[in-house]
């Protein structure tokens, strides 16, 4: 038996609806070549072009190139074989509706992922906060179905894209500087101007990451039950939150202690009716 006879034999072995073993083999070869071409194209893209693009964009382009080439291979295969999917489409109509309902959330996540990639509310490496979920951390990536955030405790949390897309996203790295805040109460007997002055001096001396311009701001927020409450607001470079916010109250207390200004504890004067 010659190879031609062998191929002739394969072309005559019909499996179903005109689909022969030979066309199936050809299809497999076309698809295999398509996958190899897709992998090579993806590899070339990541080696030469991806380094110049943002990480998220590069990943998404990589996926589009890979699956695009595979899809083109599939269309080549079907057109070469002259396969007609119209019957399959009609037959699969009901099946598609069932699948559609079953995969509603998956499709929703996929669509949300596409919109997230277009809108780009945050990019890889940004520090973000999702107040609705109580999540803060560094955005690792926005994937096809979900996004991943590395929380400040080191753990990685996966958020379905649908939830991520519909949540409020607070970017902590979009601004040049950020503001740290603290509230402190001083006794009614103490001078407010003096308290503000000593706190300001201590901040300027001991907190190098606090900006000189804009200056630290002080607001008398409330004449409370036990104390005069002063809000202290200072600005710092956006990446140096850890050098400002956690130290602010310590610095304020140290300043007040040095100057003998009292931070009163909650107190209530009870009058006896007989008095």
């Amino acid at each position: 038996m010659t190879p031609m006879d062998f191929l002739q034999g394969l072309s005559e072995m019909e499996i179903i609806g005109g689909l022969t073993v030979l066309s199936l083999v050809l299809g497999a070869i076309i698809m295999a070549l398509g996958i190899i071409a897709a992998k090579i194209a993806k590899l070339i893209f990541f080696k030469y072009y991806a380094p110049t693009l943002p990480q998220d964009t590069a990943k998404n382009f990589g996926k589009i190139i890979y699956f695009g080439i595979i899809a083109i291979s599939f269309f080549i295969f079907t057109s070469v074989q002259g396969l007609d999917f119209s019957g399959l489409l009609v037959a699969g109509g009901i099946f598609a509706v069932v699948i559609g309902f079953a995969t509603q959330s998956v499709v929703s996540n996929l669509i949300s992922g596409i919109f997230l990639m277009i809108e780009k509310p945050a990019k890889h490496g940004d520090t973000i906060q999702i107040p609705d979920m109580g999540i803060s951390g560094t955005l690792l990536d926005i994937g096809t179905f979900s996004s991943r955030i590395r929380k400040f405790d080191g753990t990685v949390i996966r958020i379905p894209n649908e939830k991520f897309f519909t949540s409020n996203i607070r970017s902590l790295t979009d601004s040049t500087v950020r503001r740290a805040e603290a509230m402190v109460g001083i006794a009614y007997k103490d001078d407010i101007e003096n308290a503000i002055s000593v706190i300001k001096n201590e901040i300027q001396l001991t907190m190098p990451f606090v900006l000189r311009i804009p200056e630290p701001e002080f607001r008398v927020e409330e004449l409370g039950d036990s104390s005069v409450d002063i809000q202290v607001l200072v600005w710092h470079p956006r990446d140096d939150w850890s050098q400002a916010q956690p130290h602010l109250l310590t610095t304020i207390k140290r300043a007040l202690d040095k100057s003998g200004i009292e931070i009163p504890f909650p107190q209530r004067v009870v009058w006896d009716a007989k008095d």
Partner: protein
Amino acid sequence: MSEETPQSNFSKYGLYTVNEHLELTLPDTLIKFERIGENAFSYFRQDSEGKIIEKMIPSKSNELKIELTPIRPLNYPARRTGYVFLKFDKEIYLSQNSAASIFVHCPIEIGIFLIHDSEPESLDWITCNPLNSRFGLYGPPDTGTLCRYAEVSLATDFSDSIPYVEGVMKIVIENDLESGQTVSKVIFPITDNSLYYEDSKSILDGIKVTLKKRAVVSIADVQTDTVSTDWIKSPTWEDSTSNTSMEMGLE
């Protein structure tokens, strides 16, 4: 030159050779090099805040060459920007279509370089004025420029530098506008300004500020202006950026 002060007891800028032991003293700062082996030296530095840094330096040769020089004030408390915000202690008024040249003090830091095959390599840096090494913001919080901030006084001439703390910079201001202008601050990328030293004094490349109109907006265009001097040029501590000019809005 200004009169000699007690600061003249401090080590001068320049090249040093370490054979066995070398001690450099700067205001509130002590630097020590010591031989710890046939081809190894130790480096010790204690700064004004009591912070100690120790390093071991293997060396091919029997001696170590180092250079102590003034560098740009961009490293303390952390390297976050290439811009400097100089706030003048006295405002400068310029009449319409006039120009002026002034000398101002500009903060500096001090770099310690290892000379390896005639090439300086950065080993360490210090600031002798940590309490006044702070950041400032020019512009709004979301789009503004983070700068190294300094309140500076006018200097008489290039010899008026404050050793180890402030160098002198020449600023040429041109007012091309049809009205008088008051200048109280200048913001510029300092990464293109070189520093030069002699003994314990330092000067920096200057800047030229042109107040002019662009369309209907008045702006201050700031460009680097290289100084001509026979003082020794400091090696570059940090990577320079591509920013060599700055445009400020006028208030």
